[in-house]
């Protein structure tokens, strides 16, 4: 009982510190630095402590101090309650969604069974979808409560876009679920121990569609019509400042991480190295004794998982800094007239293949 409690607390603290403590501040820096590299610029390098800039890594700290000391501005005529609530609604689901994503397999440690996932729900994937759709309320409420026409238009765009792409995303997932026969993400991960059973090989079309829809769901370029700065100033968060503004940004960055984690779990072998099973890892580290071998295997698996996550974060950033923005109606047309039929055909073909097998 106590061991279970300790395990849960450790796992929650780990994911929480990785996400809130590491990814959300560091991604702001990564975004600046990567875009700078891509664009022949120097990037963030001004914040310094006694002259040391540490390749700009002090910027997240400087930013944090800045946003915490900024005036929390609520525009005249705005709905104070919902205006304040909106950033919370957008940030919370992004944090929670990671609870059902496995970052490692199952191990025996000091006679205790360890499962490297915070909440091993049997409807894990549905849980993520449920919370992802909650996030759209944040955008809609933020746009509506700000009493600003630009925010309002941004909120409208965000709601329409997120709802449409959720449909397609859900249909893409059905292909994956059909192949693996489970909604539990830890099981889907465990089944990909065989390199040729990785989701990317079983559902290649599903992967491309899912990745695209996930970026659209997260409202990042080229799908950032909801906050298109050249059209709608800043879309639904035009009237936000200080910490509330940053909460929208943190939500966006954490969703990048969640998307990367989900893609890794569903399509890229979760925590597995190619051609290496958990059993082989533990045997390989046999020299360290049973517990030591398990600890080393855990570390390798977690590192593998987060390396893959980092790769997909990098990929999303690269896409964001390469492509121009769609127009609103084009985003909708793409979602409903291109992706939806393709997703349906994908399900049909998957079903056919499963039936023949």
């Amino acid at each position, binding site marked *: 009982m106590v061991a279970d409690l300790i395990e849960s607390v450790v796992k929650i603290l780990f994911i929480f510190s990785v996400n809130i403590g590491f990814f959300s501040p560091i991604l702001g820096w990564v975004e600046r630095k990567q*875009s700078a590299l*891509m*664009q*022949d*610029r120097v990037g963030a390098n001004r914040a310094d402590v006694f002259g040391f800039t540490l390749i700009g890594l002090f910027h997240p700290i400087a930013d944090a101090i800045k946003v915490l000391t900024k005036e929390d501005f609520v525009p005249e005529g705005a709905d104070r309650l919902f205006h304040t609530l909106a950033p919370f609604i957008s940030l919370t689901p992004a944090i929670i969604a990671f609870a059902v994503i496995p970052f490692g397999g199952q191990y025996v440690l000091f006679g205790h069974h360890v499962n490297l996932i915070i909440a091993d729900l049997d409807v894990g994937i549905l849980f993520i979808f449920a919370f992802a759709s909650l996030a759209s309320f944040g955008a809609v409420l933020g746009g509506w409560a700000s009493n600003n*026409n*630009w925010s309002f*238009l941004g909120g409208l765009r965000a709601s329409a876009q997120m709802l449409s792409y959720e449909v397609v995303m859900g249909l893409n997932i059905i292909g994956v679920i059909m192949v693996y026969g489970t909604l539990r993400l830890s099981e889907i991960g465990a089944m990909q121990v065989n390199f040729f059973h990785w989701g990317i090989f079983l559902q290649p079309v599903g992967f491309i569609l899912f990745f695209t829809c996930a970026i659209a769901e997260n409202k990042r*370029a*080229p799908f*950032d*019509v909801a906050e*298109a*700065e*050249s*059209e*709608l*100033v800043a879309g639904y968060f035009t009237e936000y400042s200080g910490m509330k503004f940053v909460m929208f940004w943190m939500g966006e960055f954490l969703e990048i991480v969640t998307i990367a984690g989900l893609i890794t779990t569903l399509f890229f072998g979760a925590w597995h190295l190619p051609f290496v099973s958990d059993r082989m890892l533990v045997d390989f580290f046999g020299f360290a004794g049973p517990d030591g071998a398990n600890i080393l295997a855990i570390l390798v698996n977690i590192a593998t998982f987060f390396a893959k996550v980092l790769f997909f974060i990098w990929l999303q950033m690269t896409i964001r*800094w*390469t*492509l*121009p*923005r*769609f*127009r*609103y*109606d*084009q985003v909708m047309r793409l979602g409903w007239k291109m992706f939806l039929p393709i997703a349906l055909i994908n399900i049909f073909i998957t079903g056919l293949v499963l039936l023949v097998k």
Partner: protein
Amino acid sequence: MSDTAKDLHSEYMVINMGPSHPVTHGTVKFLLTLEGETIIDMKVDIGYLHRGFEKMCENGTWEQVMPYTDRLNYVSPLINNVGYALAVEKLIGIETPQRCQYIRVIASELARISDHYTNIAASGLELGAFTAFLYFVEARELVWDLIEMLCGARVTANYVRIGGLKNDLPDGFKAKTRDVFKRCRELWADVDHLLTKNRIFIDRVRNVGIMPPKDAIAWGFTGPCLRACGIPYDVRKFHPYLVYDQMDFEVPVGEKGDNFDRYAVRMEEINQSMRIVEQALDKLPSGPINVDMPEYRWQSKEDISNRIESLIFHFKTVTEGIKPPAGEVYSAVEGANGELGFYLVSDGSGKPYKCRVRPPCFPLTAAMPKMVKGGFIADIVPTFDMINMIGGECDR
């Protein structure tokens, strides 16, 4: 759906886009009437950058107008310099030396290149292609390095003088130009890869902001926007000035007159302008850069010390300004955005009686409602970028 709309009370959304809006750079206001995202009506409100350029000109000498012209189209000030100088010279009847004319051509084309870079870069930025923006800004910086080498300033050039130039080409200019153009061509190819065949970019600009050729002429379009409609009107070809008739260059034209054609025309004009600069540098004759008319153009220090005529006119032109004969003149050059015309009236005194500018982007801005009505808010972005409205020139 339509029945519901009839029963429900609904009204259009009226919204101010600008003057402080990310897309309305150059400071302009659009008063939009929207149905959802569709533009029902649009009113353009200009004048936020009005500084009274034309009135200021009447209170200075003819030569003091030159720095003001830098602030017209501040993205390509050298062309404004050349345009104004040519107009005054036409009024007086000065034929400048060959070398001066070649250098003016080089300066104009460098300014045109930097203007087109800025325009395409900004359009990319506003359509979300931030990387393309910075690639062309780098290219523009390099061209500005050349302009800095030429006249000491990067933006407000103030390089051309009535009857000549401030100074001759610096040493090593040709070699530096070769280096700069080499890098610029690489960057051009990069941006070409990033945008020209990019499906998202094409979707955003194709068939948006269409202006039929007939309407374009009726609205007074000139420059790249007119050429995008398929009409090869270019002042440099139709009314050659300076030594453009001795240059070998093409005038690119579009087919549809939409934003993509405007983009493509500008991209190609960058190449053509580079060709012109290279030819002019190759053919550059030696000789004086200033006309030998002491009453209109300051002479060299040596002449002022040694020739009584030069000394007297130096004194007179500094205190009273040059005095073109009474009369009026209209002279146009091909600005980066189109026909940039100067209409000058002289009453024979040391100050212009009237200095009127025909800004190329004024008719383009006026046609904005025609081009975007019925489209989406998002269509304003590429259309407004591609007409390249420059506040300093439009509002004066």
